[in-house]
């Protein structure tokens, strides 16, 4: 809905023109200025018609900004896909631009990779002896300026960090979307950027799970059998060494952001299988900060109480190792939080819908929406455990937050256009 304010200006006698608004993509809102000359039809009283300037800003709403801290690459992660899917539409790289762009754009959302704000490219970091995790390799001033600009409805030319070449490529234009997601290693590192975020999430993967996932990522079936041949590329040792070498910087610069997050998704090895080291069955904890504006934490049965719940029993049969839930209040780095925890995995559709029907405050628009979203992306990693479940739920909470923010803005008085 456009809000237009009309002003009259005593300006120079210039020919007023009507500028046709630039064709805007659905979901983008831009300031449009229309110069309009009001012809005075009243008699020759001598008063010259003063040119009117009508300024319209579509929606008059600021972009909602979400921060996601994750060590798993940029803008292409499963979480991002689930999130954009909740809003509808698939997220794609900007059409016709740099093919190595990290940006993803869908109807409602634009996902920016914070690696684009590297101040040092790969060679530069090597020379200075800093990893990408180090704040010295990132330009927080530029990050702040550009996120602030986008938030207030101004398009920016954002640099591109090319992960294939390791160089900084020429910038790409980012137009303000309805929802901007900034994903990367440092969304909550800089205080000014933190203050721009309407909601923030931290994806906290434990070391054991990280190790197991990276093995699956980097070691193909082929390599695990290559015992007799010379080791080329990754091995168990190299993966372990890589995690260990990055750990000091990770602990110093990335991990401390946890305490600022409104929601933390913590991924741990399961407690249901003793000595499990495969990292296939997972224990996932959704840690939700209390008192966050427009965000009401998900709960089980009775808000604020402590619940232990095993859904498998008479009404629902599950296969080994089953499913176990826990919910309760807690403190996390000095903040009041509520924690919802799931250990185990879903085997069948009816387990998922059964669990969904017992959760409250999940911000669904219809019964079974969580299940539907999970099924829609059944091929995504984590679709049968807490990672997929909680990522989907956080996506719905973000949608809810977005709708609350935008409806509270349109509730502001509207001035009718009196042109």
């Amino acid at each position, binding site marked *: 809905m456009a809000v237009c304010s009309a002003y009259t200006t005593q300006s120079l006698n210039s020919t007023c023109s009507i500028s046709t608004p630039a064709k805007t993509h659905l979901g983008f809102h831009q300031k449009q200025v229309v110069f309009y000359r009001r012809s005075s039809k009243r008699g020759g009283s001598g008063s010259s018609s003063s040119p009117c300037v009508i300024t319209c800003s579509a929606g008059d709403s600021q972009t909602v900004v979400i921060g996601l801290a994750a060590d*798993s*690459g*940029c803008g*292409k992660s*499963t979480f991002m*896909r689930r999130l954009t899917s909740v809003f509808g539409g*698939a997220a*794609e*790289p900007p*059409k*016709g*631009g740099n*093919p190595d762009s990290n940006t993803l754009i869908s109807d409602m959302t634009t996902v920016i990779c914070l690696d684009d704000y590297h101040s040092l490219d*790969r060679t530069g*970091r*090597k020379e200075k*002896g*800093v*990893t*990408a*995790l180090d704040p010295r390799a990132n330009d927080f001033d530029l990050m702040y300026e550009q996120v602030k600009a986008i938030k207030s409805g101004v398009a920016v030319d954002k640099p591109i960090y090319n*992960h*294939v070449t*390791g160089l900084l490529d020429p910038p790409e234009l980012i137009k303000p979307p309805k929802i901007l997601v900034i994903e990367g290693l440092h969304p909550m590192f800089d205080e000014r950027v933190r203050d721009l975020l309407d909601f923030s999430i931290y994806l906290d993967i434990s070391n054991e799970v990280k190790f*197991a*996932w*990276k093995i*699956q*990522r*980097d070691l*193909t*079936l*082929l390599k695990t*059998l290559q015992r*007799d041949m010379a080791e*080329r*590329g*990754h091995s168990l040792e*190299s993966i372990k*060494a*890589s995690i260990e*070498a*990055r750990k*000091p*910087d990770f602990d110093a610069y990335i991990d401390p952001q946890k305490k600022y997050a409104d929601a933390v998704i913590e991924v741990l090895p399961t407690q249901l299988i003793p000595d499990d080291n495969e*990292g*296939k*069955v*997972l224990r996932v904890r959704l840690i939700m900060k209390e008192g966050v504006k427009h965000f009401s934490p998900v709960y089980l049965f009775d808000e604020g109480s402590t619940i232990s719940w095993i859904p498998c029993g008479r009404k629902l049969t599950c296969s080994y190792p089953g499913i176990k839930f826990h919910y309760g209040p807690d403190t996390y780095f000095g903040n009041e939080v509520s924690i919802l925890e799931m250990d185990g*995995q*879903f085997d069948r559709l009816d387990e998922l819908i059964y669990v969904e029907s017992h959760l409250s405050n999940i911000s669904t628009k219809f019964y079974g929406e969580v299940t539907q979203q999970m099924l829609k992306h*059944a*091929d*995504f*990693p*984590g*679709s*049968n*455990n807490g*990672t997929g479940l909680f990522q989907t739920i956080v996506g719905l909470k973000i949608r809810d937050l977005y709708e609350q923010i935008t409806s509270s803005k349109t509730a502001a008085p509207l001035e009718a256009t009196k042109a």
Partner: protein
Amino acid sequence: MATLRFNSLTGTVEKNPTSSFSSNPRLSWAYFQCNNKGERRASRMTVKAMGAAKYKGTQMREKKLTEMIEKKVSEAKQVCEGDETSDECKVAWDEVEEVSQAKADLRLRLEIEKKDPLESFCQENPETEECKIYED
């Protein structure tokens, strides 16, 4: 007399993979073992169907990333031999992580989106080298 044993195994598709990188359902391999005068030599034939890589540019990127991973892993091992806690060592492994993730992202896009990342670029620029159709 050499005996040839042949096992074939087709990769199994996990119904709902939990890892951050799903197993490739189209990976199949055959393992040969030749016993010849007590001498054992294992050789391997692999047939790996790529995701939907359509353009030469994507195939080139994937190849480049694979080569970079190998190169950077051996570099990192060398650099870290002296001092594991040195800055050079940290940076070397960080580079390995960066390119490993870049390769995984590319694979993930091909497999999950089933679309070549160069698709929209190549529609606008079909005559470039990168946009030649990749033929297996």
